[in-house]
């Protein structure tokens, strides 16, 4: 398992190639989040960030058969179309890989201590959290979505 909180960009193909080399791996599902059209600064809580992501991936590992996973989240100054976040999950089959990847991403949005500040023209404004993100994370708690 690899978790990295970093300023630098990442290489999706390098990361998924690494995951696909694992013993028994038959599927690697990945998600990349990118900056839309507005430059932003991403602040985080360094002492807490990695630990909170680790807990989310461990939770995913209890729900699905996750063989390995990589989560990279950037912070600092980001320009439009820059990559922000990578979640990649390796498993024996696609079902577990898809589900765990989506689960980790949904929980990152509501549990990992990052805050976006957008820079538009004359001013900068903190991005407001969206209720739909809480809904997306909350749906995994319904019995129908639990593994097994």
């Amino acid at each position: 398992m690899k978790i990295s909180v970093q300023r630098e960009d990442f290489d999706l193909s390098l990361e998924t190639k690494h995951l696909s080399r694992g013993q028994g791996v038959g599927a690697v599902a990945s998600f990349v989040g990118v900056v839309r059209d507005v430059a932003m600064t991403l602040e985080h809580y360094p002492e807490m960030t990695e630990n909170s992501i680790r807990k989310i991936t461990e939770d995913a590992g209890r729900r699905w058969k996750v063989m390995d996973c990589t989560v990279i989240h950037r912070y600092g100054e980001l320009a439009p179309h820059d990559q922000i976040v990578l979640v990649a999950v390796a498993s024996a089959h696609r079902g577990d890989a898809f589900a765990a990847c989506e689960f980790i991403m949904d929980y990152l949005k509501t549990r990992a201590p990052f805050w976006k500040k957008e820079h538009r023209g004359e001013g900068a404004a903190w991005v407001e959290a969206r209720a739909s993100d809480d809904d997306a994370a909350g749906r995994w708690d319904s019995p129908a979505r639990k593994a097994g």
Partner: protein
Amino acid sequence: MKVKVLFFAALREQLGVAGEEVELPAGIATVAALRGHLARRGGPWQTALAEKKNVRAAVNHDMAKAGAAIRAGDEIAFFPPVTGG
């Protein structure tokens, strides 16, 4: 008892402080009580930490509910709902 309090993002800007050591009077033993104690400083503290404001907290780097206990030496962070990913 003494605790370390941190503020992030919009909350840090509204309060004009990133963190401080706070000596707490007896009886302040939960996250909610600490928040109320800080809000009573008035001005931006009262505004930013008002009960109706959606403020989240962490105790020693774990997300914590309002009723979570706090102890001497703890690191308590207050911040807006997260917006990463």
